């Protein structure tokens, strides 16, 4: 397959591997449905021109669905009513294209696919032609003074929310956590709602988390509740005393409170600082809370060795805008969001098509914990830090102790996060290892290690 993707490479875009296509699927159901449509049966008028793939898919209705994919984006359009993105037709067509060249012949886009593709390409050219900063200027609000006042008012509201929350936390500690045991969510929900009103979504979600810890009934709930309260208190205090914090730490506090930074500003604004590197995709993970899909893509720079996390959000008709299967290397510019320990980044210009990358080098268990500890010095709210572990062996749970990843020397081990143990990925990890050392990427945190990708030797998402 590797041979093929090189052979079929063309100036506009390489033919994808099927694994790449499958990684685009928003969920398992789509993967299934797409797989079913990856057969020539329902398709007609299929074609590809290097940058795009199109086809008509016979559905239940009279008129076939028109599916068009711009593989340089990638971007998708389909006349089906599905709210999944990409829909099963797009996935099926891409699988067909990736699997068997003959069923999707090269050609020129037909009438029904042309305009959309032309529009995409025009937009891409315009974007490329726009000088850096030009785009930023267009977004500058007409009245900078009004915008500044708005921002100030928001900070004031957050500050009053934080003060109120401090009061709430101090009350809780004065009367004792016992009073909160098994307590109703309502109290917490009310407080969370007050924080939403105060335009501090970061505080609101932490308050909700407190509620679930208090109601969890786990044996260690008092300790966990105290720790979460203390970190929330730390965040409140950080925000209220932000004037006295070093600028990077103040930026971390702002981000954790829920104040956003415009990605375009980061990439092209007056203070834009991008990092160009060959970024290896370590993991791509989607989570869904019912309304919103969050896609987390972890990257590591080959030259800089820096970790980066790209977030995108979909749902409510808004598609996820980026799909990068693990294992690809991306020559691109990244711009880190400001903070004391930058991790989140925006993706800027891509200098070359993504290509398959190597198995990443990694560290041992000691170094992984040290990396998390080190990161905590800069950002005390970090739950975990991304690391690549090399030569670790999954050790099965035995009488009471959970699963571990053991170092090559066989002495040190990192427990797996208990939340990972119920997942199917655990057994995939065990099966791939077969008792032998493997390279694993994941998040190393205070509750243990959450594996996200294992190399076999091609990356497998867990």
């Amino acid at each position, binding site marked *: *397959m590797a041979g093929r993707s090189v052979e079929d490479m063309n100036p506009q875009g390489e033919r994808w591997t*099927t694994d790449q296509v499958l990684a685009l699927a928003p969920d398992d159901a789509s993967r*299934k449905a797409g797989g079913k449509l990856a057969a020539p049966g329902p398709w007609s008028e299929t074609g590809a021109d290097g940058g795009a793939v199109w086809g008509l898919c016979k559905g239940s209705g009279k008129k076939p669905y028109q599916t068009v994919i711009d593989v340089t984006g990638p971007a998708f359009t389909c006349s089906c009513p599905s709210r999944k993105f990409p829909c099963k037709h797009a996935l099926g067509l891409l699988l067909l294209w990736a699997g068997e060249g003959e069923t999707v012949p090269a050609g020129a886009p037909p009438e029904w696919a042309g305009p959309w593709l032309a529009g995409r390409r025009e937009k891409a050219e315009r974007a490329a032609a726009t000088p850096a900063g030009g785009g930023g200027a267009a977004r500058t609000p007409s009245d900078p003074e009004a915008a500044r006042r708005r921002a100030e008012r928001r900070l004031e509201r957050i500050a009053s929310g934080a003060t109120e929350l401090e009061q709430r936390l101090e009350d809780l500690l004065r*009367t004792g956590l016992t009073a909160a045991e098994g307590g109703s969510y309502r109290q917490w929900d009310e407080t969370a709602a007050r924080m939403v009103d105060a335009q501090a979504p970061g505080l609101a979600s932490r308050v909700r988390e407190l509620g679930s810890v208090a109601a969890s009934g786990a044996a*260690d709930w008092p300790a966990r509740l105290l720790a979460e309260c203390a*970190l929330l208190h730390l965040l409140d205090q950080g925000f209220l005393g932000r004037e006295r914090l070093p600028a990077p730490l103040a930026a971390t506090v702002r981000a954790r409170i829920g104040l956003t930074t415009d990605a375009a500003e980061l990439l092209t604004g007056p203070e834009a600082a991008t990092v160009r590197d060959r970024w290896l995709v370590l993991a791509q993970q989607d989570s869904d809370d019912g309304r919103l899909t969050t896609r987390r893509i972890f990257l590591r720079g080959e030259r800089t060795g820096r970790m980066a996390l790209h977030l995108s959000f979909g749902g409510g008709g808004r598609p996820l805008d980026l799909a990068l299967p693990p294992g690809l290397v991306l020559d691109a510019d990244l711009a880190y969001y400001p903070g004391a320990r930058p991790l989140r980044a925006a993706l800027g210009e891509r200098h070359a098509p993504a290509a398959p990358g190597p198995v990443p080098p990694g560290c041992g268990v000691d170094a992984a914990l040290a990396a998390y500890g080190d990161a905590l010095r800069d950002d005390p709210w970090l739950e975990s830090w991304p690391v690549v572990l090399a030569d670790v062996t999954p050790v099965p749970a035995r009488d009471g102790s959970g699963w571990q990843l053991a170092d090559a020397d066989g002495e040190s081990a*990192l427990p797996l996060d208990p939340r990972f143990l119920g997942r199917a990925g655990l057994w995939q990890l065990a099966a791939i290892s*077969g008792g032998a050392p493997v390279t694993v990427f994941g998040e190393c945190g*205070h509750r243990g290690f959450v594996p996200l990708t294992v190399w076999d030797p091609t990356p497998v998402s867990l």
Partner: protein
Amino acid sequence: MTTTPTTPRTTSSTTPRTAPPTTPAAAAAAPKAPPAPAWEELVSAALLGTDRRTPPVPLRPGQSPSAALLDAAAVSTVRRRAALRPAPAGERPAPAPADPRPPLPPAARRRLSLLLADRGGGGGSRRGTTPDLTELLPQWLAAAQDHGYRAPGALLPALLDAARARTDLRPAALALAGPRALWLARLNDDWKFALRGFGGTAAVPGPEAPEGVRRLWEEGLFAERVSLLTALRRRDAAAGLGLLATTWAAERAEDRLMFLDALRECLSSADEPFLEQALSDRSRNVRATAAELLSALPGSALAARMARRATACLGLGHGPGPVITVEPPRECDAGMERDGVAPKPPSGRGRGAWWLGQLLEAAPLHGWRAVFEGRGPAEILALPVADDWRTELHDAWCRAAVRQRDATWARALLGTPAAPAQATEAAPTGSSRDVAKLLTVLPEDERAAWVAQFIAAHGLSDAFRMLGVCGVPWAEPLGRSVVDALDIARDAGSYPWSFSGVMGLAERCLDPAAADRLDMLTAVTEEPEGASPGSGGYWSEAFVRLVGTLRLRATMHAELSGGAGS
């Protein structure tokens, strides 16, 4: 400290490896680092509340005790998190045995993952035009078995889950999954079934390890022993019998029955003395099975005894012309019973007919030539039979032909498929004869040809079970006649789901090469006069699905040969 995932190697008061973090609280509030109180003290103070107990933390001027407690807890939390140490490693699992088989070609690997992801999908909804992947998984597994690939580790959990849910998939799924799946199954109780030995020969010790064979036979679980015996029979029939003989007398009756059944594999006259002995077994079921196995050996002493009894019942009379005369046995004596004749008929059947049927079934068919003065099977079957015994007699010969795998007799009993009376003749009223079973006695291509002619003459309504015993993919002209019959059924205007059984079989069994011919049937046709409303569209849909499935199967096979996508 319970939130800590790792057990510190040193005692609880771990000295942080890194300096305590500079926290905003520290930067904003506390200029001096306070002496750190133990985390447990902070937790118990928080539990009780600062109203009741003064927390063991220093207060800044103007600060409430609860705020000071929160400050201290924040510092302590971050400090503990930053100072986590690795835990001592638990005992590592023994590595999984090496699996030297080659990996799946990438395209086949992806196909398998799609097929596994689709398990349990579908539900009760109308099938539409897309192939039913659930039915393709068994095919894929069977085809993969011929190639001798090893399953990718990432798919082993799904493969084991699939095998857990569907016992029919187990042998092929576990063969593909190989030794690593057994290794994995030991770690997860959900997959215990895999350890009970469906793994074919993979789990059976080789001929170079006679001790291993003996130990497994003596200490293994029942299913492990059955699969060991079956595998050993295939490798060395005499050794298998020898192994069984060593413990035979000590086995429980139901186990003896299953072990005896395993001897069907590679049955030969060498097994006769053992089986003859089993005719005196304590268990009636064991005796009956031994008798059945012996009668499948036409040269056995039991077969000769049955032949003697059977020929005493039939004769050739010469009325106006030759006629078969029938004299059923008067009693079921001890000798007959020992040879496996069940004495008590099911309700509604006469005792004589019941006994006669069993004698005829067990008597070697080649003996009838002499009884009927040199006539061959076809001529014997053409003879008139006295006193309404014809159906009874022919049914018994059908069972005998199946048991003795006698193709000449089966051919004669099946007759000409296209004969107008065949549909009724093959299974006359009151007959219990099983045409599909009889067909299995014929060589595969002859079987396919017979069914093809049958369908051409009589349509699909009675053909489902016959199609089920034909070799896959269907050899021509069978495939063509099924397609033609479906086309005719469409023109007759009925709904396709009246033929869903045959359609499902066709998806699995038609040669993928038939797809091109079927393509022209996928167009929506003018509905014939009097057709069921909408049937044309449904037929088109059904044919689209059939074509799609066939193409997918062709792709699957190509992928397994490494021909596509790699």
